[in-house]
């Protein structure tokens, strides 16, 4: 508990120091609880998520950093490796490939990379995965960009 708190505090300081260094990631710690964080990440360019801003919720276990943070999308996203309803993310570094060498910041970068490079063979969203697996890239992209517009972009007017 103490070690996880100390580590998270270091990450917090690093995030404050590096503010703006990565314009695609805005990582914010809950005011009253260092084990709860949220992040705003920009959809990578040349993907159907471009122009969208996606919110992630981090719940950090007491055994952090020996155990990975639990991360999920709060913003709806149509992506093979993100559960359409819960926002749960299928990413190896959040499961068995986790190591303390990762940070909350680098987890965000890994999630952005996953958005650009979906893994349709291990889908949490089968509809999305099936479109890609059947080679319907156009169908996937139009569905994904529709949801980006609906859920991840500010309302017009």
């Amino acid at each position, binding site marked *: 508990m103490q*070690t996880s708190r*100390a*580590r998270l505090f*270091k*990450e917090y300081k*690093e995030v404050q120091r590096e503010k703006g260094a990565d314009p695609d990631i805005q990582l914010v710690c809950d005011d009253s609880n260092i084990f*709860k964080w949220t992040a*705003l990440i920009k959809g990578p360019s040349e993907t159907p998520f471009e122009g969208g*801003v996606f*919110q992630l*919720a981090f*719940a950090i276990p007491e*055994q952090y*950093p*020996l*155990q990975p943070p*639990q991360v*999920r999308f*709060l*913003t*709806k996203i149509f992506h093979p490796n993100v*559960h359409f*309803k*819960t*926002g*749960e993310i*299928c990413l*190896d570094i*959040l*499961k*068995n*490939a*986790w*190591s*303390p*060498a*990762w*940070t909350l910041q680098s987890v965000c970068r890994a999630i952005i990379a996953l958005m650009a490079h979906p893994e349709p063979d291990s889908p949490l969203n089968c509809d999305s995965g099936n479109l890609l697996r059947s080679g319907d890239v156009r169908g996937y992209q139009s569905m994904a960009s529709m949801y980006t*517009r*609906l*859920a*991840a*972009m*500010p*309302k017009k007017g």
Partner: protein
Amino acid sequence: MTNPEGRGRDDEADSSAEAPAPDGFEWSNYADEDIMHQKNEINAVEAEKIPCVGDKEPLSALAAEYQSGSPILLEKIKVLDEQYAAIRRTRGDGNCFFRSFMFSYLEHILETQDKAEVDRMKANVEECRRTLQSLGYVDFTFEDFFALFLEQLESVLQGNETSISHDELLLRSRDQSISDYVVMFFRFVTSAEIRKRSEFFEPFIMGLANTTVEQFCKSSVEPMGEESDHVHIIAISDALGVAIRIVYLDRSSCDKGGVSVNHHDFIPTVSSSRSGAVEPFITLLYRPGHYDMLYPKRPS
């Protein structure tokens, strides 16, 4: 974050996920969460069976395991019995090699009070720290693990306020959080060494896992619970300059008729400062998939 006003008609089931309360994470249908939970429970059951580091047991305890098993293994254990006095088991959680190494090394320092060895180790640890930094690791990701190991190393030397007894060393090695932190320290050290000398390790890794060196380190060295192979052992032995003897107990038999037990010494290549034949003071028993510690008989 703005929610869309016109949502798809098949979205009605999402209303709860769509507007989460600031703290109201819907973990209830969080499948992976359940999986992790279950895994932790399985680990807890295993943990009750055997501590991270067990008690010293006579070799007869090892023979008892194979009483109704392979005659070759029983023969080999008889051979081992001539040279080795005892075995100390570790938990089979994928970290057994690093945990065995941890306990053997610290116990050796505690018993020999070899200050020169401690100084040599500290210098190597500093070198590993610099390697990680030059590889681009952020300090705060590894420094806690380094600090905890150095603290253990310091405390096995006697005569200080923070000195600890053999019993206390055993308790700490069984304390999940201390023990895991030291294991993680070794994982960082191993990863740093492999990546620093990636041309040397590349062919071994290609043969083992058919991945890049970097990918291997990320998926098979740094994560806790990933089992160790020759590559890990060579790397940690070289990085820390500590020789390791591995005794192999498997069903392989030799054609000459008599049964013998193979061993292999991993002698650090880089630290040739101490020339001459290095007799390893760390001896581990390897049975396919698992490492325990072995205690040689002392010459009387």
